[in-house]
């Protein structure tokens, strides 16, 4: 298990609402709601977008997350951390989506969007070289993450981009902590193999 102190401090390093602000959420205080939205919107949207890729799907599911949060706020316990709760809701929404037929349809859209992204990149070759290089890396990393199995992808996003502890991720994904650690380790290894040349370039730079 993650060291409690470590977990606490890791959590504190990511923007979040204070305990006082959290106490206002069950009352649906407008100020607290606005703060909550501003703190979590980009992170929730970004998480979902990386999992479902298509913009319109990400918007639909993000909206569902915030609706769910809003409706659940009266029963929210302000002593509980928001982040695991919010990402549990987001993960469940995505999981429901994956179970649906629409997910299979979206797979086709995803490949089209990735191709479009590369086309867009090719067209904009007037940017500074460093930006192009970084953009190329971004695209490669994005593609590599998209190729991960759903479970690995979710784990990587929650860990590497949201900084959640393995224990918290395990609770969100309904798996034990050890399984999540293993999954994360396998995901990193898969990414290393997938990224290949990009990884070696980065290694040389370092």
């Amino acid at each position, binding site marked *: 298990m*993650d*060291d409690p102190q*470590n977990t606490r*401090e*890791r959590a504190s*390093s*990511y923007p979040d609402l204070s305990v006082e602000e959290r106490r206002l959420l069950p009352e*649906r205080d407008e100020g607290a*709601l*606005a703060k909550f*939205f*501003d703190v979590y*919107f*980009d992170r929730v*949207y*970004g998480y979902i*977008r*990386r999992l479902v890729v298509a*913009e319109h799907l*990400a*918007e*639909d599911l*993000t*909206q*569902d997350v*915030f*609706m*769910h949060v809003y*409706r*659940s706020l009266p029963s929210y316990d302000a002593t509980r951390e928001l982040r695991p709760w919010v990402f549990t809701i987001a993960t469940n*929404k995505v999981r*429901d*989506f994956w*179970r*649906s037929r*629409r997910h*299979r*349809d979206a797979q086709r859209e995803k490949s089209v969007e990735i191709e479009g992204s590369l086309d867009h990149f090719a067209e904009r070759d007037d940017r500074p070289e460093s930006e192009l290089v*970084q953009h190329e*890396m*971004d695209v490669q*990393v*994005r593609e590599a*993450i998209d190729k991960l199995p759903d479970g690995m992808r979710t784990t990587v996003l929650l860990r*590497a*981009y949201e*900084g959640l502890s*393995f224990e918290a991720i395990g609770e969100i994904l309904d798996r034990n902590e*050890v399984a999540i*650690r*293993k999954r*994360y380790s*396998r995901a*990193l*290894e898969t*990414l*290393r193999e997938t990224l290949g040349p990009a*990884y070696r370039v980065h*290694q040389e730079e*370092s």
Partner: protein
Amino acid sequence: MPDRAEDWDPADEAAVERACSGSGPEPSPSFRAELRDAFVRGRFAHGDEAGESSGSASQGEEAPRTPEHAMIEHILNKSRISEPARDDFRQELRARFVAGEFEGTAPEPASDSVFETGAPRSALRLLGWAAPLAVAAAILLIVILGAEDSSWRVRSVAGDGPLVIGGTEVAVLDGPELERRIRLGQEISTGEHRVDLELGDKVRMRFEPGSRVRVEPSADDGQLALQLLAGELHGVTGPDFVRSELQIDTPRGTATITGTAFSILAVPMGACFCVDHGTVGVKDKSGPLHSVGGGSSVFLYADGSPAATSTETELGHFRSAESRAEHGRPLRQFLAELAY
């Protein structure tokens, strides 16, 4: 990404956060230097590593954290992997969220108990088998339509109490919201409502109170799917359905319908297909193909018992007397209301 907060000062963490969110082009120099130092010396300030090295046997089974993995984590941190949301979407959702336009709470999905006692006498003896086979009562309707893209529309919603879609309550008068959720493929619990949907001039469906259904969105190839998890539906095909085919796939078999009017009842002990007109081919996985013509029905038992055929087309025949009195109406009455 650093795992131990004590290994990094707050300024570094802020830089990492900016890089993760895409708002910062580079990690902080100190973070880079720290990681470089750790990389060269083969010591990574990673809470997981500490946990693994001192953990249990099961933790010891994990792949050892390597410099390569740390480098991958660094690459992940540095990369902008997510596109930003549209500004108008963000602003609109923010306004709705803060203003509290989301009303109500999220109750538990409605029970499907309405039909759980509605077995025919011959089926009641199978109740002992029914519970473990409840899942087998799920019906998958695969509607293979033409190549035209289309989506389900809400014709009407009638009844009292909550309509629960995707685990959350939806205002019954909010048709667009309901349709949006249907497009997401979310499960609908009709509760006390009767929900009528239509797919253009191809097919109309009515879901009775107490039903749980997942109306799958249309695919680009025109193939659609509906899952009737419990409850009862009626369907009537329309003029544009002439060239089309309706396939009904259950865990135990597949039914094929072409231009017809039908009713389907899903209960724990099986599923009943009643046909008013047209022909339905019901293929039981463990049995033969039953050709069910207009004015007849077939009941597929979840436990694999031989299918029962009947000239009875009223689903009420398959319910208990109590349930029949509450819900039973002539099939033709439903069909008349749904007819194009």
